[in-house]
């Protein structure tokens, strides 16, 4: 090829791409949400004099152009491919894929954050829960079970040591041996509800509850599940399936959301039609306080479950043992306000937090 032709191709090609992309970006309709990234996308900013002068308009416009860029998802896949397959980077935005499962590097252990999180739990114990049956269990993130030692994992032994030294007045339930890699979704952080038999058995044993292992459940499939990591990685892996375990007891339960003041069902089949996260089927997703009342119950026992999102799928499986389970998520409500909503009496208490939450300082 001659120089002239090459120069012609480069010049015309470059201008053509710039102008075509500009026009396509202008005429393409803006999206509200990114399903793959599970987040709201930026909208075109409003322009006011003060926003223009303090630079807010420019910053918002930058976010808008990136979020609404044509073929954004495809380009993110290109980036993922180049970084992992060409540059051979071990992770892409801290995410990596192995055997069709996606993991996020949770490293290093942030001892300071862990201590802060645990001290907040201890403060709740000291303030409200003295002389009650109080238990705690830590849910390992799925990296713990990843056999390949090539990837960075937080120092789990150190985490356990810190936990046991700060929460020494509480009863510890070790569920780490009751889980395995296949008990977690391949495309998400969470555990699978249908795989929690061993965890339930362990909790019931330690908390001296009736063993409900022989309780009959119907397992219903609720379609494909694209977990939180699925869109973040920008790489194609097969989706998970999401299931619910149900029986008459669970079907007859009524939930009450203290924030919205609305009653509902344990499994929210409506919300998954609109929510980008199908895990919200369990107790309608994240909320500060929600209770499950067991209308078939033969007991007056109650459980206070201090929890993160892992607790939503586990709580329904404990309801056979209780008249009422109140789930409290202190990521969304300050623990100082709890006495306004909860009557602390002689309930069982279980703190159930994942390593992911403890390693951040997000409990209030």
């Amino acid at each position: 090829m001659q120089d002239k032709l090459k120069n012609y191709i480069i010049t015309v090609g470059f201008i053509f791409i710039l102008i075509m992309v500009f026009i396509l970006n202008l005429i393409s309709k803006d999206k509200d949400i990114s399903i793959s990234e599970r987040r709201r996308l930026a909208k075109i900013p409003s322009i006011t004099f003060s926003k223009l002068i303090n630079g807010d308009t420019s910053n918002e416009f930058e976010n808008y152009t990136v979020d609404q860029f044509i073929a954004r998802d495809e380009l993110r896949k290109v980036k993922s491919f180049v970084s992992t397959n060409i540059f051979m980077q071990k992770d892409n935005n801290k995410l990596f894929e192995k055997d069709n499962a996606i993991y996020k590097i949770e490293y290093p252990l942030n001892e300071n954050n862990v201590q802060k999180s645990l001290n907040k739990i201890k403060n709740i114990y000291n303030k409200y829960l003295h002389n009650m049956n109080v238990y705690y269990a830590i849910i390992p993130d799925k990296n713990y079970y990843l056999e390949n030692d090539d990837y960075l994992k937080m120092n789990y032994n150190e985490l356990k040591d810190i936990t046991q030294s700060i929460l020494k007045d509480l009863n510890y339930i070790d569920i780490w041996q009751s889980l395995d890699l296949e008990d977690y979704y391949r495309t998400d952080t969470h555990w699978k509800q249908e795989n929690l038999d061993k965890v339930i058995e362990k909790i019931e044993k330690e908390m001296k509850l009736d063993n409900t292992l022989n309780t009959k459940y119907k397992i219903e499939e609720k379609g494909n599940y694209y977990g939180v990591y699925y869109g973040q990685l920008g790489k194609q892996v097969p989706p998970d399936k999401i299931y619910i375990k149900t029986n008459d007891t669970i079907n007859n339960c009524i939930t009450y959301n203290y924030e919205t003041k609305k009653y509902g069902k344990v499994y929210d089949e409506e919300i998954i039609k609109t929510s980008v996260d199908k895990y919200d089927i369990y107790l309608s997703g994240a909320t500060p306080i929600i209770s499950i009342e067991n209308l078939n119950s033969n007991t007056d026992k109650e459980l206070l479950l201090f929890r993160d999102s892992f607790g939503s799928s586990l709580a329904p499986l404990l309801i056979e043992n209780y008249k009422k389970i109140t789930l409290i998520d202190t990521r969304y409500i300050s623990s100082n306000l709890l006495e306004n909503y909860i009557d602390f009496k002689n309930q069982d208490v279980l703190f159930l937090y994942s390593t992911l939450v403890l390693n951040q300082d997000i409990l209030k």
Partner: protein
Amino acid sequence: MVFSSITFLFYFLPIVLAIYYLVPNKLKNTILLIASLLFYFYGEPKYILIMITTIITTYIFGILIEKNSKYKQIYLIISILINLSFLLYFKYINFIISNINMWLTHKIDLINVILPIGISFYTFQLLSYIIDVYKGRTLAQKNILKLAMYVSLFPQLIAGPIVRYVDIQKQIEKREYTLEKFALGVRRFIIGLSKKVLIANVLGELIQVFGVSNEKSVLFYWLYAIANMLQIYFDFSGYSDMAIGLGKMFGFDFLENFNYPYIATSITDFWRRWHISLSSWFRDYIYIPLGGNRVSKIKFVRNILIVWILTGLWHGAEWNFVVWGLFFGILLIIEKLFLEKYINKLPKALSRIYVLIIVMISFIIFSGENINIIMENIQGLVGINGVPLITKESLYYLKSYIIIIIVGIIGSMPIMKKVSEIKNMKKLINIIEPIFLLILFLVSTSYIVDGSFNPFLYFRF
């Protein structure tokens, strides 16, 4: 606005290019001026007034100097003081106050001031213009719009190269547009963009990880030192490539700013290859007026030290930049007075290793937040601070970044340049080049769309 953003690439650039090539030649400068002011206003809405003020005053004093030879020295001094006072206030005032405060019991409050983007660059351009008018190297520009267009020209406005008025005054009046030049511009721009987005930004992530790591090791200190060296080079030279490339698309020919500095065989050679527009500025406007090297040894040492303290301070109002400048100043003096003859006799490979180690240490000083971190990062290279040789974490990051580091090392050497000069390869290269550029542009765009880590290091200068 940064070049490596969707806003610039797919909104600003196509609109400006289209208008620029559609309007008649006599309107092209006006279009460039408007586009450049919008470009600056977008990123620095408030402080655009400072730039406009300095342009107007420098314009007036330029004409006064030319018209009135009796007072021209006074006009020059006033103009220099006006330009420097803005730079001094916005860039150095808090540095000065905090240093004075060290000696005071009643401390002076720091001033809430933000460094206007590009002020170090455009101030130096204006200074070179006014000094050149004074020296008679050029005539004063009578058309303020043309002077404003020269200073605010968006390809080089916020991070250089420091284009001198004398070098492009003819191009301001008349530029040549050829297919070859435009294509060359596209090539330089895409290569610069890739250097920035695919190498510098990615290595920047590694440097961030290193900064917060609690498990440092000798290996990790080396990874950091090498990544840091490559990041600074690819970030800054990538920006210069983009600036030169954009300049060509609009018909300008800017001088080169980098010439493979990491193959230099001495520190003197390194500074002939690194940020050439800045080092030549200091040479022509400070070093030579002070007498350069045609003076006594003591004065020569004084001249070098003044230039390098100022070079350090130009990069930032922190003591580490002063130390960084002095570090080079002292090394250059040692080289000139003693070492040069020995270095010249060394095999090239050895002299290059000598330069690379010195430069690597210099950039640890350059990037260090404080003296403790700088010392730790230097000691860590030889394990003096008792860290292990290797940790699982450092091994992980070595595996994760080794390809990018290798690409960076290869990209720092003129290998591709030499290959492209082989005659028999020309046909093949002509076929591959457009495809290669298309892929680089696509991949760079994908990194911009996906990533949030996109700072330009030289914006803070």
